[in-house]
């Protein structure tokens, strides 16, 4: 929303110069301003600029906002009084959320609240949820996932919300059938239910859900103890579209073979990691679900793709994942014959994939959009030529660790796949020439070329020049990259959100200064970039206000100054990896003032004393996970550790010897390949 911003600035200048008592914006009607606000979604800072224009703008912005993702709870009361019409509240970044907070949210927002996300937040109990149930009677969506300690009471409280449509209880391990039963009986409008990893849930609960919630569209029972007993009831749901049962070991062939009734509405079925599924079960699935579009059979190691030859045609099946299955060329042939409208295919880690198999598929499926051949180590340029010659509309191509490909193959990608948005060439034998030809994929959003040791600036510069939409760039251990290449990226890719330059040892502060122009950058990994110092980090902190993850491990030059800058600007910082940095107590304490910080790794910080560390731990309220050296365990008071733990923080005491040098990337790659060969 650059134009908007520019306008803001210009008008402000006007006001200052002319001292005009009447704002020119008064003439703009509310409808127009609302329309403008509707468009201001990509960058949260835009809305801030908007509301700073005038009092009426501020007010309008307050009225307009529907979504809110607060970073700090202590500001929540003022925020909620300002934004009274919030309907979607995301509290995932507020790690310590008490019942009192929830009660106040409930009374402040009451009927306007439609959706609340409490995933991963700690400290609240069922009482808070009961407050929500009592006051927010329009609540339609709730996410209480990743609360391992929450039990059936929470589910019972959710069961009191009559309008509830979408419930996510993933990994609430203490929830049992009783809780699920409460939800089933209390929420007749339920459309989505996720009980992933709720190990206490069995057939009884799931069955009751299927009986009671006839509007259910999406059901996730992954990693539960369900067996075939509940399947008939589920398959009678008239609107079920998505059914996920990853890792349900109780499901086997009989479950589907004996199933009398199919489900016409079912579109997506995820059976990954169902180890007891074999061919006959899959075959009966394909026969019984005529409208199936997505089928995920990843890691069903006993499924053999050649069974598909028994099928006449699966005209609707558009997306199939066969990761880690037994795949042969003939199997792929029957697959290509039977699934005539295939759009997405994932064959990652299928050892049987060869050039022949790929060619067979490509001959039939010219409109393939996504292809994943990660770790199919036997495919060569022949496959690539087959892929590129037929599938010109390919959007996503993942071919990590396909080591037999050469630059000729990459040239073909660049020539024939102009629509490519996602390309993963990690651990390939990519060189500058290949990378240069890839630059002709102008739509690239995500490019992963980590562990391609041969690429240099000469290859990267064209990418920066011709891929303006790039958001994700992985240059892990691309040791040939220097500041010049990064500057090209920073100039050409303003939407960059994530960049990984770990172990690119030629990177210096200059690179970071260039990157600070990318205001959307939120993930920065510069592990092991020895030339980077606090100057670069400070520049990033000031320029990239949305920074949420920072990895500066082994950047020995980074010191307190960087921490001060981060504490000042990076209020979105959630995760930081500081090991081996030259940070002292002061820097650490400054960092601890960041309320958003949740995850910190602090090993081998020579300048930090146990006292400083203890104080930092005390101050940093939002911490959920801390990695520290085990030598601190004895020097930090036991009571303090217990106190911090009681706030919901888990300690990971690492015992790692101080590593003076680290091996060169060539050596490292050789070692990792040796590991694979073994």
């Amino acid at each position, binding site marked *: 929303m650059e134009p908007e911003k520019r306008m803001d600035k210009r008008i402000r200048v006007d006001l200052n110069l002319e001292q005009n008592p009447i704002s020119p914006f008064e003439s703009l009607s509310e409808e127009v301003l609302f329309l403008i606000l509707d468009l201001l979604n990509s960058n949260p800072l835009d809305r801030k600029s908007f509301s700073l224009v005038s009092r009426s703008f501020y007010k309008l912005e307050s009225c307009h906002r529907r979504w809110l993702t607060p970073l700090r*709870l*202590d*500001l929540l009361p003022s*925020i909620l009084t300002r934004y009274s019409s919030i309907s979607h509240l995301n509290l995932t970044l507020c790690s310590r959320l008490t019942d009192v907070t929830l009660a106040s949210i409930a009374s402040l927002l009451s009927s306007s609240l439609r959706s609340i996300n409490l995933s991963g937040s700690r400290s609240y109990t069922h009482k808070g949820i*009961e407050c929500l149930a009592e006051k927010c009677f329009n609540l339609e969506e709730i996410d209480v996932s990743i609360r391992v300690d929450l039990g059936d009471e929470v589910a019972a409280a959710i069961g009191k919300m009559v309008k509830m449509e979408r419930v996510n209880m993933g990994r609430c391990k203490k929830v049992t059938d009783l809780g699920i039963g409460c939800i089933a009986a209390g929420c007749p409008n339920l459309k989505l239910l996720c009980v992933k990893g709720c190990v206490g849930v069995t057939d009884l609960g799931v069955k009751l859900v299927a009986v*009671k919630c006839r509007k259910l569209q999406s059901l996730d029972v992954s990693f539960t103890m369900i067996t075939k007993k509940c399947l008939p009831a589920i398959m009678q749901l008239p609107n079920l579209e998505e059914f996920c049962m990853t890792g349900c070991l109780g499901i086997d062939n009989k479950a589907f073979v004996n199933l009398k009734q199919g489900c016409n509405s079912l579109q997506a079925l995820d059976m990954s990691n169902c180890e007891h599924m074999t061919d006959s079960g899959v075959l009966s699935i394909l026969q019984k679900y005529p409208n199936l579009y997505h089928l995920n059979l990843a890691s069903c190691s006993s499924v053999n793709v050649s069974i598909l030859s028994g099928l006449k045609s699966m005209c609707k099946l558009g997306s199939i994942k066969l990761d880690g299955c037994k795949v042969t060329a003939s199997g792929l042939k029957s697959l290509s014959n039977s699934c005539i409208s295939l759009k997405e295919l994932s064959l990652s880690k299928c050892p049987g994939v060869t050039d022949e198999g790929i060619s067979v598929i490509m001959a039939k499926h010219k409109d393939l959009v996504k292809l994943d051949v990660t770790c199919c180590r036997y495919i060569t340029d022949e496959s690539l030529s087959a892929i590129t010659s037929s599938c010109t509309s390919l959007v996503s191509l993942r071919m990590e660790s396909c080591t037999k490909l050469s630059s000729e193959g990459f040239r073909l990608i660049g020539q024939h796949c102009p629509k490519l948005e996602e390309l993963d060439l990690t651990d390939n034998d990519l060189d500058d020439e290949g990378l240069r030809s890839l630059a002709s994929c102008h739509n690239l959003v995500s490019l992963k070329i980590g562990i391609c040791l041969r690429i240099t600036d000469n290859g990267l510069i064209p990418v920066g020049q011709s891929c303006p939409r790039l958001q994700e760039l992985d240059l892990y251990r691309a040791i040939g990259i220097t500041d010049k290449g990064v500057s090209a990226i920073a100039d050409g890719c303003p939407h960059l959100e994530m960049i990984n330059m770990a172990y690119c040892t030629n990177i210096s502060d200059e690179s970071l200064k260039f990157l600070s122009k990318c205001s959307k950058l939120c993930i920065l990994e510069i592990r092991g970039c020895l030339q980077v110092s606090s100057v670069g980090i400070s520049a990033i902190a000031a320029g990239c206000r949305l920074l949420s993850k920072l990895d500066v491990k082994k950047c020995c030059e980074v010191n307190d100054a960087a921490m001060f800058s981060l*504490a*000042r600007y990076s209020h979105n910082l959630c995760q930081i990896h500081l090991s081996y940095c030259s940070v002292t107590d002061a820097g650490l304490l400054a960092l601890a003032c960041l309320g958003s910080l949740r995850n910190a790794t602090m090993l081998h910080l020579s300048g930090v004393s146990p006292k400083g560390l203890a104080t930092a731990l005390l101050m940093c309220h939002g911490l959920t996970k801390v990695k520290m050296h085990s030598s601190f365990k004895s020097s930090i008071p036991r009571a303090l550790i217990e106190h911090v733990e009681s706030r919901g923080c888990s300690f990971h005491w690492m015992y790692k010897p101080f590593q003076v040098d680290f091996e060169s990337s060539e050596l490292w790659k050789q070692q990792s390949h040796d590991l694979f060969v073994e």
Partner: protein
Amino acid sequence: MKQIIGEPGIDLSSDSKMDLKLTRNSESFHKPNSSNHNLNSFNQASQYFPNLSPTNFLSRAENLQQNLKTKSTNSFEPNLNSGMATQNPPLDWDPHAMLSNLSFLEQKIHEVQSLVQSIIDQQAEFSSRPSELATRQQLATADLTCIIIQLISTAGSLLPSIKNTLLSNNPALRQLVNPDFNNNLKCEGLIRNFPETARNSEYEDLLRNLDNEADWMKEPNPPLQSDIVDANPIDEHDLKESDDGDAEREHLPPGSYIVLQLEKEEILAPHTHFCVICGKGFKRDANLRMHMRGHGDEYKTPAALAKPSKEPGSDVHPVTRYSCPFAGCKRNKEHKKFQPLKTILCVKNHYKRSHCDKSYTCSRCHAKKFSVIADLKTHEKHCGRDKWQCSCGTTFSRKDKLFGHVALFQGHTPALPMDEVKASGSGQGNDDMTEDLGGYNGNFASEECLTSMDVKGIDESRAYFSPMNFDGFGALDEFGRGGFDLEDNPFAFIPSGFSQRSGDS
């Protein structure tokens, strides 16, 4: 049947039970043993039956007494010896028991003899009272049947192929030595099969069956079968599964089974096993056997102490079902939609449950009453432990029952266990919570109060915050200024930048 042969002062139920035991014992050796060896040897043994077939000596009932004596001594033992010579050289039957069996038979035959004699003597009187004559005839019939059974039993004990445990001639003895034995055969089925006009020719009919080897093996004569009411006299608790409901599931076509009906007194009799010597009653056969040991060494043999064979042998016998004596009951044979009961135990449980007072009260809940003590015991095991509860208050002992209930009704939800519900006190503290809006500003001390928050805890946290004058949102400006939560912070010098924040991401 009581009206016919009932004698005052005789415990009918105990008698009928003894019949059962008798027949069970006699029956036990008819059954082919499951083990192959035994089956073969049994077949082998069965070849003797034509030889020792009672046709020779029982073809005419008049000659019964004389024939019996001669046959039992002459024709039995040679056969026995030859059989044992081939199969089982060591003598595994008790000659003393055999002798006492034979003397019992003798005594019995004398009884019948005197009975028949008395009929002849009083023929003139009977002409005026035909019913008494019929009674006498019946008694004679019953006694003769008894003799036949005993004879077969004794003969069977000599068969080398059958194990002692199966023979259990001692228990048979024990039953047969009973002085009241002539009152024993009183089951209605027996009566039906031996009508008042029973004649000797009918015995011949009966015994003709014995000639036919196959029939003998597969389908023992009806009077024996009709008496087999309880082949497995186990304790009621053991058999509780086979409740009166079981018969409902099988759909036997009417007429394909024999219907027996016991009287109320028989059903309600406390004891079903009686000592033949002292008359003491027992509920369990095993207890009786233990008791019998006190009556002499002959009851201490392994054979006497062995558990009677439990083989049901339903394929061998005609199907027998039971009728409830309560008129109008669906289990009564007069009922239009008569549903028979499967076993004696079913009859007992059914009668007690449906037509008797519920005299056993649960000592825990004092609410539930039972008429069958086993039901009470089952209930007491689970009483107070119905942990699956519905919001409507109904409790269930099993989770699937609760879920079935919830699935059936609209608006019912599973209720959480009581202790949890108590902990999740209703939202009365909510208003307090909203007043304490300042309570979650991340202040260190406040966390102490709130981490273990229950309804009480809310009040505590409130007490903590009240000195700070945070009444509702009046304190909100404090937040705007920032720095509030850093006032006690030794590192307040660090730029906080609160005012620059948008507060959202």
